[in-house]
């Protein structure tokens, strides 16, 4: 694995954009500016980025309720996302979906999903379409440790295997399904072990390590593109915020999040790696930090200034024709 300087900088920009987006949404939600249920991806950036930087426009991803990071990593417009979270007419879904349903089908982003385990069957379908198109497209299903216990996930692993689908299942095991530990809820030793039981190649990865995710995802994507069938990646990582914004997280140990931020942070580890190797200078990163800060600031200002959807939009978009 060798990444060019530009590729490294792109990966950094992506991770940093996700982090700053989420940190800002945390603040805006607390200030009462964003309605509804919001689930933040902060802490997990290396996973979405390590996978999605290797996908092309014709590849697909199916996401989860914790979907902002997957969206940004798939190249979805940050302005459109922020406006969607604010429920504005300029949002990706015209303000009708919100945080849990951000989607951009044109970019192969099949939507965040309010139903745990809703994504894997959809990714199988996209993978089937790509298999029949025969142009090397693949589909990735991101699924949490909670979603990994759904029958839909097990059924999808089997279906992908028997049809040899170009599908990649990325389990993001952040330790908790809502307030329940994955150590309790997952009976097998790991999701990698489960997947091997279904006949899929699988590996367990440090999901805070961009380079580890990148390498494993690269192999899986290559396998899928070349007709080698599905793979499961079992990424161990952590979230910095609650299940949803407003979750007091009393189920977590004291100082657990601070300890993780201090010791495991994926951005910190990425920066340490690329600056120590001499590939990237601090000033390159500072320039990106400034661009990202400006982008997020602009997106929030634009979202706040944007109009609400027109009342007639309540009745539109139910069918293509009726």
């Amino acid at each position, binding site marked *: 694995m060798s990444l060019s300087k530009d590729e490294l900088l792109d990966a950094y920009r992506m991770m940093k954009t996700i982090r700053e987006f989420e940190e800002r949404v945390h603040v805006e939600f607390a200030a009462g500016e964003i309605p509804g249920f919001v689930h933040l991806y902060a802490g997990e950036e290396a996973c979405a980025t390590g996978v999605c930087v290797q996908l092309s426009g014709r590849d697909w991803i199916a996401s989860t309720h914790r979907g902002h990071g997957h969206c940004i990593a798939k190249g979805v417009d940050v302005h459109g996302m922020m406006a969607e979270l604010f429920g504005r007419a300029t949002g990706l879904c015209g*303000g009708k979906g919100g945080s849990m349903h951000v989607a951009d089908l044109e970019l192969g982003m099949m939507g965040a999903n309010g139903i745990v385990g809703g994504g894997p069957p959809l990714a199988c379908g996209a993978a089937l379409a790509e298999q029949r198109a025969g142009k090397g497209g693949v589909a990735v299903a991101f699924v949490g440790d909670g979603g990994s216990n759904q029958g839909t996930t097990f059924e999808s692993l089997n279906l992908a295997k028997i049809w040899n689908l170009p599908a990649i299942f990325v389990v993001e095991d952040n330790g908790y399904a809502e307030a329940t530990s994955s150590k309790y809820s997952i009976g097998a030793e790991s999701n990698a072990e489960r997947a091997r039981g279904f006949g899929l190649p699988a590996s367990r990865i440090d999901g805070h390590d961009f380079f580890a995710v990148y390498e494993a995802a690269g192999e899986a994507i290559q396998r899928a593109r070349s007709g080698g069938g599905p793979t499961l990646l079992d990424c161990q990582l952590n979230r910095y915020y609650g299940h949803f914004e407003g979750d007091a997280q009393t189920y977590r140990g004291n100082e*657990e999040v601070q300890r993780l931020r201090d010791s495991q942070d994926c951005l910190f580890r990425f920066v340490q790696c690329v600056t120590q190797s001499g590939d990237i200078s601090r000033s390159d990163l500072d320039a990106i930090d400034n661009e990202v800060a400006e982008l997020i600031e602009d997106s929030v200002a634009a979202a706040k200034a944007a109009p609400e959807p027109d009342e007639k939009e309540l009745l539109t978009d139910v069918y293509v024709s009726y």
Partner: protein
Amino acid sequence: MARKLTFQHAINEALDQEMSRDESIVLLGEDVAGGQGADGEMDAWGGVLGVTKGLYGKHGDRVMDTPISESAFVGAAIGAATSGLRPVVELMFNDFMGVCFDQIFNQAAKFRYMFGGKAETPVVIRTMIGAGFRGAAQHSQSLYSMFTHIPGLKCVVPSNPYDAKGLLIEAIRDNDPVIFFEHKNLYQVEGDVPEEAYTIPFGEAEIVREGEDVTIVTLAEMVHESVKAAEALQKDGIECEIIDLRTTSPLDEDTILESVESTGRVVVVDEANPRCSMATDISALIADKAFASLKAPIKMVTAPHTPVPFNPKLEDLYKPNAGNIAAAVREVAEYQKTWETTTSKS
């Protein structure tokens, strides 16, 4: 003795008292305690909105956190109900019924009939309904009519704390599968609730307000909007009779029909989507069995035939409110049967 309790505390108390009374009752669902296997506190959540908080401390391992595996744990509750336990299973949002529909409508609902009356399935499935929480399309539906459609299921849709406690205890003691729909916007509503355990029979609607001009048939949160509408209409001399269904299966047909026979005018108010809904069901019942009493067409006030939108302004527009209800009642109250005078002249 009655004291003020919130809707959610009334539910918690019903569960607590019944679990103390009957060892065979177990409670299961996603984070009904919370914190299982983690380093922090147990009973960290007590359900996603804290409705079952504290029950783990009192009843220990009879309060069981589940993986996010709705087909498995709802199905397990149904299986356990056929074999000696009396499970109360929480399915968080009723939208998630989509994940485990088979276990509910092909399994639980059918056992008694298809096994020739030999099976009993005393399970209660508690689940949240309703828009108004900015939860968007997959967390805000009101799906009680889908379950009312299925023979073998009983459906309870309470509107206030007193009914919530009494109907939940009735549901737990009932030997059939019961779906207990809790409107999330009602959890903080307060009302008088007796301390002791009591039951409210299924299939008995409540007349929450008497009136001679127009009957409003409704349920759940819409009872409160209908009361607001009735108070406004009273100032204009229109007296509404409001019927709170309380259960949609069994349905108290007599109370509805008797009221319509007396007023001759009716508005059905249902937060759910309009097609194949409680609103259409009750309208059909009235048209079938009380047609001769009608002095005006039946009006339905419902959500439109759309999913629930995220944007708060659109969501507020989606939901019926006191204003829509009052407008419908006025229309019905002012309706004149012009054709009757025409035909009598000719």
